[in-house]
């Protein structure tokens, strides 16, 4: 139930290669996040799985059955769109029921399924409203309701939270994770936000310019990025990169070290410099340091750091956490 596999899936539009060839196996019940900057092909890949875009070549199988040529409706998938794509002329009830109605499910069964979904999603009081009478978060839940009533093989989410404000986004993130636990269904989730990817995914697929850069669990990607791109994309604040002589000392073209893996030391450190800016978040502070030889570095200081902007500071990286990259951006292990 709900395995999805992509075999050398290609998408070419005119002379424009969007996906040069992707391979991926998604296990049943897995929560997979496609992440990457905008224009990296993650949404296209999702839409190809949905059947809303053609494959130029390659094959997609769901549950071992080849669906490369099948229409969206024949694939047994449900999708939650970025704009929610609710039917504006239908009530919430009819929005949720539409898919079942199209499938010819008997009326009584539709009613009970809709009622159940609405209860799960706290929408029971809103069933007779039109989408325009709902708040952003409620619309989002209707979109999810429309997906869950059909009990699909897998759920596809296309940047579902990007239209919500920050506070709501955190709530919905937790809500979707809980939903995944309860339904234990396969979910593919597209986002450009690495925080969403890290917090939600069983496995993250990082895409860059249509190419799958790396697939792995959040911590695998955090600890062992395969490339400069993944290293820079995963983690917040971004990993520091240093090139030139400091990198050459480590026999690399570029070295990378995360802000949280640099210690502030007394006296003289590996890198010495001045604090240019300090961001105080309460639990910790991020210092932007102009270090001699290494350039601008961001360093995490736990708690309330007392140092002044413009003051001198000495830094020492945790060498076991240092990442080295060659001139092609690949990792040197």
């Amino acid at each position, binding site marked *: 139930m709900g395995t999805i596999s992509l075999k050398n899936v290609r998408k070419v*539009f005119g002379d424009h290669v969007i996906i040069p060839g992707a391979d991926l196996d998604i296990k049943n019940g897995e929560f997979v996040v496609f992440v990457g900057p905008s224009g990296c092909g993650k949404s*296209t890949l999702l839409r190809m799985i949905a059947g*809303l875009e*053609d494959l130029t070549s390659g094959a997609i199988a769901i549950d071992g059955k080849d669906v490369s040529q099948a*229409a969206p409706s024949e694939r047994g998938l449900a999708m939650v769109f970025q704009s929610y794509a609710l039917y504006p002329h239908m009530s919430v009830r009819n929005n949720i029921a539409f898919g079942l109605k199209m499938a010819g499910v008997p009326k009584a069964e539709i009613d009970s399924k809709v009622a159940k979904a609405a209860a799960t999603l706290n929408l029971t009081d809103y069933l007779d409203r039109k989408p325009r009478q709902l708040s952003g978060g409620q619309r989002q839940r209707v979109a999810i309701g429309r997906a869950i009533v059909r009990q699909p093989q897998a759920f596809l989410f296309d940047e579902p939270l990007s239209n919500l404000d920050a506070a709501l986004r955190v709530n919905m993130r937790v809500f979707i994770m809980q939903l995944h636990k309860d339904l234990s269904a396969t979910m593919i989730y597209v986002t450009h936000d690495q925080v969403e990817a890290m917090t939600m995914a069983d496995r993250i697929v990082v895409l860059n310019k249509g190419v799958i850069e790396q697939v792995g669990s959040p911590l695998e990607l955090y600890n062992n990025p395969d490339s400069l791109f993944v290293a820079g994309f995963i983690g917040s604040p971004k990993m520091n990169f240093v090139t030139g002589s400091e990198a050459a000392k480590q026999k690399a073209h570029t070295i990378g070290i995360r802000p949280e893996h640099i210690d502030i030391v007394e006296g003289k450190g590996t890198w010495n410099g001045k604090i240019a800016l300090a961001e105080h978040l309460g639990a910790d502070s991020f210092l932007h340091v102009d270090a001699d030889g290494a350039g601008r570095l961001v360093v995490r200081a736990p708690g309330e750091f007392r140092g002044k902007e413009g003051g001198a500071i000495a830094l020492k990286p945790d060498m076991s956490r240092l990442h080295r990259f060659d001139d092609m951006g690949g990792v040197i292990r």
Partner: protein
Amino acid sequence: MATQQSRTLGRIAVAPSVIALFLWMIVPLAMTIWFSLLRYNLLDPNPFCSILSPGQLFDEANRCLAGTTNYYYFLTDPAFFKAMTNSLLIVGSVLLISVVGGTLFALLLDQAIIGRNIVRLMVIAPFFVMPTVAALVWQNMLMDPIIGFISWITKSLGMGAVDWFTYYPKTAVVIIVAWQWLPFATLILLTALQSFDEEQKEAAQMDGTPPLSFFWYMILPHLARPITVVVLIETIFLLNVFAEIYVTGTGGRAGNLPYLVYQYGLLANDIGGASAGGIVAVVLANIVAFFLMRMIGKNLEG
């Protein structure tokens, strides 16, 4: 981007309208071209040239190949030159009146005036009046030299009455047609003006821009595109003005190209000649359309 299947369905869905419009355009055009090359008069049967007829349809007895004779006669008919100038006169003067007048009206109606909605309703009303009604009302009740309303005013002012349709038939037709199209231009330009950014207006006020410069540098560029559209749409309709001439009986002196073709065909039953005239009208319209489409294309892209 979409799937091949949805693209194919899209093509199939578009097909019926494309086919219908293509036939609607090409079949009459081809027939008109064919007829224009024939000696073909419904009232003047010529028994010696029925050999050419392909079937029983369309009065096979009355026609034989005439080559370019019809074109020769049509183009050298003094009536043709007159009709041409009348066509251009009607299009040109109505365009001028409606664009200039429409812009001024639109600017006026865009001001904070009392009862603006009612004023707007009154101004645009003539556009909805069917051409035959407009023609009859103007001809009889307003422009009649003896008991028409306008002659009453001019006589009360001591200027004497004007017999419009006898002495100034072209002016009369232009007035009637302009009365119908000025509201159209006003409506379009007013709608466009109302989409003018209020903050830009306020910024210009802060800068102390004088009204005339404001109009010239801000409003007019904003209206460039709607004005182009007005010119295009009106030209299409104005080249084909017919009812106003037909109903007022001014065809003899104010008749335009469509009226002349109608005269040739349905009044004189000279199908060949009328067809030649129709083709001439098509060619002329295409020349105008070519320039208009380029202008519009430029304006609509940006």
